[in-house]
């Protein structure tokens, strides 16, 4: 979704739990989405992406689900570890329209805290 002011959603989990982070998008024509992880003091880091011809994509301990009907993305992290603590953003290169993939529009982000 749009960033309209920063009261970031927070998710606090215990080490070993599974985490689910959600994101809504606005442009029904968007066909590609990306999840980024941002640790304190660092730039965002690519985690996983998904194209709209897929409903699900799996990586190492991460899965992204895409529901085009309700324009919703989720990032699932399995067996969450303290090193997963960070802010997680979804990004849509086509949120503002057009077909280019260069200009990322980021969601507001979710703060994930993993307790040992």
């Amino acid at each position, binding site marked *: 979704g749009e960033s309209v002011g920063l009261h970031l959603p927070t998710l606090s989990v215990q080490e070993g739990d599974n985490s689910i982070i959600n994101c809504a998008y606005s442009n029904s024509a968007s066909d590609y989405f990306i999840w980024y992880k941002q640790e304190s003091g660092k730039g*965002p880091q690519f985690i996983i992406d998904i194209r709209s011809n897929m409903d699900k994509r799996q990586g190492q301990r991460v899965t992204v689900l895409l529901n085009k009907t309700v324009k919703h993305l989720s990032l699932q992290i399995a067996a969450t570890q303290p090193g997963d603590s960070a802010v997680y953003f979804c990004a849509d290169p086509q949120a503002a329209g057009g077909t280019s993939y260069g*200009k*990322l529009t980021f969601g507001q982000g979710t703060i994930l805290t993993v307790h040992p």
Partner: protein
Amino acid sequence: GAGVSQSPSNKVTEKGKDVELRCDPISGHTALYWYRQSLGQGLEFLIYFQGNSAPDKSGLPSDRFSAERTGGSVSTLTIQRTQQEDSAVYLCASSLASSGGIYEQYFGPGTRLTVT
């Protein structure tokens, strides 16, 4: 190999002064992007350069902001007559290309700008 580097890492300036922020992209990356991350607005796109094409400046918030990319490599973001609302972390990213294809954007650590 070396990632995207930005300098300075921190910059404190007085209101009304001009500042220049530098980005060194990953060697061989033809696309370069600037984003801004602030508490009030989240992570927002500013401008991107793709090869020799005219840059997409659609995210620049005012005419006080400008950027250039010399020799298809290093980029400088200039903010003239800085205002307190310009305080933010300025992030640079680079990728192999952006037009017509999907390429991962690699982010630098950012420059934290504080306008007093």
